[in-house]
């Protein structure tokens, strides 16, 4: 019995499209399955401040006509409350049979996956960070290829050039706002002493266009980043799905949910539910699993019928608010809503914390007001006079501090439990808070007391390492080509196969790795 396709790719997120390009370009018949969800609520077309001042129906995209933001009040991130981005997250756990406690499990059934609503942070991993069973230099061509396709900005040479390792692939940065300009000026003055203290600052490297590219427009500082960019300046894998569709040998099957995968001799068979709800089977010579770390893990463990817990990497996080007294009373301005400046901070034990700072204008104020220990009316009064001179920062610690496990239960539900190595994380967060407050103080930015807040386990949405690559893979591990031990011709190409997760954003690396695996496999199928 012949296969329907040369390769089936499960998932159309960053990993799925990255793996698909080399396969499709090699002329192979490739089918891509995804949950098929698309945006239901359009983001504003005007810039944020204009839309806020003039649009009487702004509540439709800020709160949602079904009150989505209020229903998701307890979600861990403002991103998960945005009505325009709801499609990127909805229905994931139920459809993929994933249950998590107290861990926050987020995934996507949308075309383009989680890249529909990400922070666009990109970085290269070093050999030490990646801990791949091959030299990271092997990823070099893939890093470049993926970077070229996405369009990165932020390069130009600064103290984080080595840390990100992307400057030659980056366009110039998106212009900074007043607050970040002020911090940057102070940093350049106090640079020597700050660097000596283990604090380095640089422009954020992001997958956002600072120059127009093909059918995407450059960032115009509209400030709608949280709600979605109508100019497509931010990279989304859904744009790559459109490009892949231009190839006649590429078949996109949206709205298909994969139930299980089976290895049947030289073929792999995918059992799935079609948009109509009927069950179907598709066969291919190879299967690329790129459903997102959590969903991919469930599919693979289920196919292996492996019920031992596997480790799950995730970065401990925190957020904080910085106040720049010199900007008190300045009017709000248009500006870029994602990371503008990033820092790398040395901590004890050779560990590093990484984070970025963002403008507060595009973040709904109610997100912050409810956390202030003041009466609501006073909290709003304080914020409306203070927030214009504040920036918000985030912090990521390395994923090796994870203490989370994923286990397939008797009903084939993936159960995720655990969080971090609590004592270590608490010590590191305390140290990071102290050092960050000191460093930013030298830049005339004051960390507001009580604003440093650790996130819940899993809220980073940087998941990895459940099916790690190894030179000599054991049970539940993958080969250098991402092939699962015990599941011939099934390749895991997303975050699940990364052996390590540093504090940096891992999206670019998992995309480069998927591209690398695609390039390795394509010639074997021609």
């Amino acid at each position, binding site marked *: 019995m012949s296969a329907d396709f040369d390769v089936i790719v499960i998932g159309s997120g960053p990993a799925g499209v990255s793996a698909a390009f080399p396969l499709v370009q090699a002329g192979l018949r490739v089918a891509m399955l995804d949950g098929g969800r698309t945006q239901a609520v359009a983001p504003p077309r005007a810039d944020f*401040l204009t839309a*806020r*001042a*003039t*649009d*009487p129906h*702004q*509540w439709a995209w*800020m*709160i949602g006509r*079904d*009150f989505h*933001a*209020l*229903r998701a*009040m307890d979600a861990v991130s403002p991103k998960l409350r945005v009505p325009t981005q709801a499609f990127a997250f909805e229905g994931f756990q139920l459809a993929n049979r994933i249950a998590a406690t107290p861990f926050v499990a987020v995934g996507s059934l949308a075309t383009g996956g989680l890249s529909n609503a990400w922070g666009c942070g990109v970085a290269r991993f070093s050999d030490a960070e990646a801990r791949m069973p091959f030299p990271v230099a092997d990823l070099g061509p893939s890093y470049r290829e993926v970077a070229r396709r996405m369009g990165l900005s932020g390069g130009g040479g600064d103290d984080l050039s080595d840390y990100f390792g992307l400057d030659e692939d980056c366009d110039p940065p998106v212009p900074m706002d007043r607050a970040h300009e002020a911090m940057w000026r102070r940093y350049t003055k106090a640079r020597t002493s700050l660097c000596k203290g283990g604090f380095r600052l640089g422009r954020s490297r992001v997958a956002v266009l600072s120059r127009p590219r093909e059918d995407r427009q450059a960032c115009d500082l509209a400030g709608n980043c949280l709600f979605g960019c109508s100019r497509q300046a931010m990279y989304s894998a859904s744009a790559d799905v459109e490009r892949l569709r231009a190839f006649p040998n590429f078949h996109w099957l949206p709205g298909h949910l994969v139930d299980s995968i089976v290895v049947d001799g030289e073929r792999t068979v995918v059992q799935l539910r079609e948009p109509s709800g009927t069950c179907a089977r598709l066969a291919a010579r190879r299967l690329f699993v790129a459903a997102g770390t959590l969903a991919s893990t469930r599919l693979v463990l289920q196919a292996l019928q492996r019920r031992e817990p596997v480790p799950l990497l995730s970065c401990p996080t925190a957020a904080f608010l910085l106040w720049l007294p010199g900007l*008190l*009373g*300045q*009017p*709000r301005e248009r500006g870029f809503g994602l990371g503008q400046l990033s820092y790398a901070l040395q901590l004890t034990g050779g560990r590093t914390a990484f984070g970025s700072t963002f403008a507060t*204008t595009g973040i*709904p*104020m*109610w997100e912050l*007001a*409810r956390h202030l220990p*003041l*009466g*609501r*009316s*006073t909290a*709003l*009064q*304080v*914020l*409306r*006079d*203070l927030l*214009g*001179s504040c920036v918000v920062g985030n912090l990521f610690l390395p994923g090796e501090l994870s203490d989370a496990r994923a286990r397939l239960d008797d009903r084939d539900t993936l159960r995720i439990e655990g969080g971090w190595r609590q004592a270590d994380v608490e010590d590191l967060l305390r140290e990071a808070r102290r050092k960050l407050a000191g460093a930013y103080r030298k830049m005339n930015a004051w960390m507001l007391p009580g604003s440093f807040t650790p996130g819940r386990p899993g809220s980073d949405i940087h998941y990895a390492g459940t099916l790690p690559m190894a030179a000599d893979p054991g049970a539940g591990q993958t080969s250098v080509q991402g092939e699962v031990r015990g599941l011939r011709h099934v390749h895991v190409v997303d975050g699940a196969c990364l052996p390590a997760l540093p504090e940096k954003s891992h999206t670019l690396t998992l995309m480069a790795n998927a591209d690398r695996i695609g390039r390795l496999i394509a010639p074997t199928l021609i």
Partner: protein
Amino acid sequence: MKVMVTGAGGYIGRRVVAALEARGDDVIAAARRPVAGWSWYPFDLGRPSDITLPAGTQLVIHLAADTSGRGMLSPASEIASAQALADQSKAADARLVFVSSQTAREDAPTDYGRTKWRIERIVLEGAGVVVRPGQVYGGAATGLFGTLVGLVRRLPLLPALLPAPSVQPVHVDDLAQAIVAAGAAMAGATVFQVGEPEPVSFTEFLRAIAQHRLRRWRLFVPVPVVLIELARRASFHRVDALERLGSLLALQPMDTRASLDMLGLCLRPLAEGMQRTHRPRRTLLAESRAVLRYVLGTSPRRDLVMRHARAVEAVREAEPLGLPDWALRRPAWLRLLESPSDLELAWRLDSATALAEATPQGAALFLRVGQPTGPARAVLGLSSAVLTEVFWLCVRTVLPRSARQTRNARTPRGRL
């Protein structure tokens, strides 16, 4: 659906418009004067020749009437207006619902009842529907209900007519639902009679106002009806109250069961309907207005209030919080009720902040978009916020805990 409501600013009209808006209809308030927050269309019963139907109207609810009892309008003018509406509705293929009266009769003792009867004929001939309400009560103390509430409030002694006339009460919100349902009913040329199927004595009705609405005790003194009749005949001038009583005495009972069934309505009990906070929706709206005013520091727009109430209903499926009257009247004092343990109030405030922020009004207030800014203003604003917070903290420390709870936290009503 595009719905024109005549008399939209009146006692019943306001509730009908609210019911239509809650259903998502596009409502045009047809009245002599604009009604704040609603789409307005000029409409004057006294000028029948000027009456036109807005383009695209699918349903006309005709509530406008001369209820003064003093014949401010000529019956001919009211009838001609109804005829104009009926003609135009027919031409536009719009459905016409006419809100009549239990007093409507060919031989009614008042012009009011006879006019209603004549208009009913016009509407029914045009295949429109007629709603005949019983004794309308509840909601804002306006209209005839307001007169009765005022009477009970002022008079320590009230007449208990003998023999007692009967009324068939219907709460104004139940009536609004009935009118909306009549507009959607498949039946044409039908008279819907809406009121409590079991009549209650007028004395009982006044007692319910005293007991459940005003929470006061009143002494009822028996007054033979014959004396009223004598007084009416003996007076040289028309006396409104006596005329109305005469109309009341002449009421014919209505068999309302079939109509209520057809409209799918179950009327609330009189004791419940008389409560000032009887109706979650109304109370919710009042609470939404208060929490929005608290977070905005200024009056919220009506559509924002409705949106917040809808959010509470949709997301929380929650009962009203039971905010004390003083907090509803002076929302700044809500600060006294905020506490980490009152999670429901916190949710109401969170949602009010979110919804208020997502308006141009909120953008101006929170982001200072289009507003003057500057370091001095910011320092002043921050200082004022700190002082305000200190003030409220001081007030909180001297107030007993029981005064700092919402009513659904089981605080005895008398202590608020």
